[in-house]
């Protein structure tokens, strides 16, 4: 197993001190995490077998300074921060894998700098809105409802492993504070409706795109797969049966080969 390390990258834009978790060897690949904050799970671990994975932490989350989010005023700022992180990592044209909020950010980057994103894997991304299928208000839920909204098979060992809490009460308190703050720090760019104009920008994306969606996603319905596919020129959809919002956790055995085969094609 590759042992991840944290790269610290001072960014000129917003004076943000970026933190990028990295591991693996091979060509570069960028992984963008979901609203709940950075997670280094078996799916990401698997990617390190063939790639040097760079996983930037959203401002205010993970290894970054909590208050750094206050200097990032807009989605425009956030996109430029990523652009400067890519510069610093000397990434020319790179594949991006993004999950949920991270999927939205992948689309924003690919729309802003189409030449910079060679391939894109979107795992149940947010960023579009349909009145007849509203995105669940995941920032306004008690923990048990949030968990039930994220996963179809709560009892499965993979989901249970993902939800496992530390034993130490202090660590639990810090974990909850980090989770809540991550939802707030990412929520800055999607509140109160996660529809900030991406629909007008998706046509600019040039990257070959694989859109993976859990068939039973209760956070953002799988009907959105087609909404993304209709707007991204070179894209195709894979629907994962019996699966909720986080297919790479809930159905890793199905998702991992799809992603690997797509990236190697």
């Amino acid at each position, binding site marked *: 197993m590759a042992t991840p390390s944290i790269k610290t990258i001072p960014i000129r834009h917003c004076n943000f001190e970026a933190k990028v978790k990295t591991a693996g060897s091979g060509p570069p690949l960028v992984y963008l995490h979901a609203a709940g904050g950075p997670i280094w799970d078996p799916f990401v671990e698997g990617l390190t077998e063939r790639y040097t994975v760079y996983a930037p932490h959203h401002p205010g989350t993970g290894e970054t300074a*909590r*208050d750094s*989010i*206050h200097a990032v*005023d807009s989605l425009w700022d956030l996109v430029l921060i990523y652009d400067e992180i890519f510069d610093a990592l000397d990434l020319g044209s790179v594949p991006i894998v993004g999950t949920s909020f991270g999927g939205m950010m992948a689309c924003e980057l690919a729309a802003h700098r189409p030449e910079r994103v060679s391939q894109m894997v979107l795992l149940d991304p947010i960023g579009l809105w349909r009145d007849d299928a509203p995105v669940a208000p995941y*920032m*306004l*839920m*008690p923990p048990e409802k949030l968990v039930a909204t994220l996963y179809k098979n709560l009892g499965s060992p993979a989901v249970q492993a993902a939800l496992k809490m530390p034993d130490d*009460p*202090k660590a639990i*308190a*810090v974990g*909850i*504070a980090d989770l*809540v*703050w*991550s*939802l*707030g*720090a990412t*929520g*800055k760019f999607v*509140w*109160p409706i996660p529809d900030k104009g991406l629909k007008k920008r998706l046509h600019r994306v040039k990257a070959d795109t694989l859109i993976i969606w859990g068939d039973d996603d209760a956070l953002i319905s799988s009907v959105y797969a087609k909404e993304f596919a209709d707007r991204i020129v070179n894209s195709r959809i894979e629907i994962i049966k019996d699966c909720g919002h986080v297919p790479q956790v809930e159905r890793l055995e199905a998702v991992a080969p799809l992603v690997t085969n797509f990236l190697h094609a």
Partner: protein
Amino acid sequence: MKVTMFHFMPYRDLPEDFPRGLASAWVDAPWWEYGDANKVTDYYNWSIDELMLAAKLGFDGIGTNEHHQNPYGFMCNPNLFGAILAKMTRDQGLDHVALVQLGATVAATSPPIRIAEEYAVLDCISGGRLVAGIPLGLGCDANISYGVTPIEQRERWREAVDLMLKAWTAKEFFAWNGKHYQLPKVNLWPRPVQDPHPPLLVPGTVSSSTWDYCHDRNLPFAYLSYFGGKSADNVMDRFWERAAAKGKDANPYRASFLQLVGVAETDRQAEEEYAKHVEYFYHKLLHQPTYQIAPPGYSDYKSLLNVLVSGKNFLQIGDLSIDLKPFKAKDMIEKEFVVVGSPATVRDKLEAMAKRLNVGHLMVALQFGSMPHGRAKKNIDLFGREVLPHLQTIWEDQKWENPWWPKRLRNRTVKQREFATA
């Protein structure tokens, strides 16, 4: 002690089985199932009459606040009510009474100089009797009902307050190039009567950031707890500790406390009379989950960690995340969430509480929950005649100044108060 009658203006006739399967009484209670505009006609008028009765009985202040989309209290703009009260108190010769607007939420009003203008209007109509509350605003109101981004709310609030103060006091035109607000030319009409501006009051709960804000700016803090003086020790102790750490004195007028109160002839009568209204308030109107009060980002990280690491020990029972349904009125009276009893009992309990918590301002809610107009008037009348005069003398034997009260109302003597009550 300065005593203000504070009104939530609740919906008083929710059905027995409310809130049924609702996740919250706030935002989630459908108007089309529960609301009746004809009843609300009475509620608004009764509430204004109840506050006016308090003014007639010699209370130092009368107070209103802002909430949205719920039956707990729906004065969507407290300044509408403040304007009515300013005019009525003036016309009826009751200009001893302060208008404690607790208040309008600047961070959810765009642009916030609208509140600077409205407060100035109130100060003008009332002839300088405004206390200008500057609440941060609850998440359910600002974030959900009004769509303000939670993680921006606190910095919006700080900027809005700075803008309001400059708009009140600047003797030149200015452009405001803020992070959240931009205005090309500010020249506020009118300005407040009080010079340089009305006293500010910062309401809040358990946020250490809010306490620090108060101490750094020498502003008073109003602890809006629903769990009574008994459970407020931890919070107020920390507030005073932080005051000392920042070199501030222990002037009780730095602090204000909110308390639900029910008075009747005897303790037993009081318990019988107010029990159902107590349960209505705590079980129906306060039916609200924490994710609505403070959505992610609303509490800053330091305060969040502070509360989470301290856990239940910090708040004891003063925590809205606990289920209040198992508490019967008797328990809540015993725990003093509400102070209910004969005039003597209420006097003693409130005096002990004020002295223990070291608060110089008391806000009493004398109409709460389903309490009908007739009972509310009796409560205000009994409190006004038998409890209020006693409480008003607290702290008067001490040297403390109260710069956080309208200047022209600061030196109201005992004699003047007796005249008002006569």
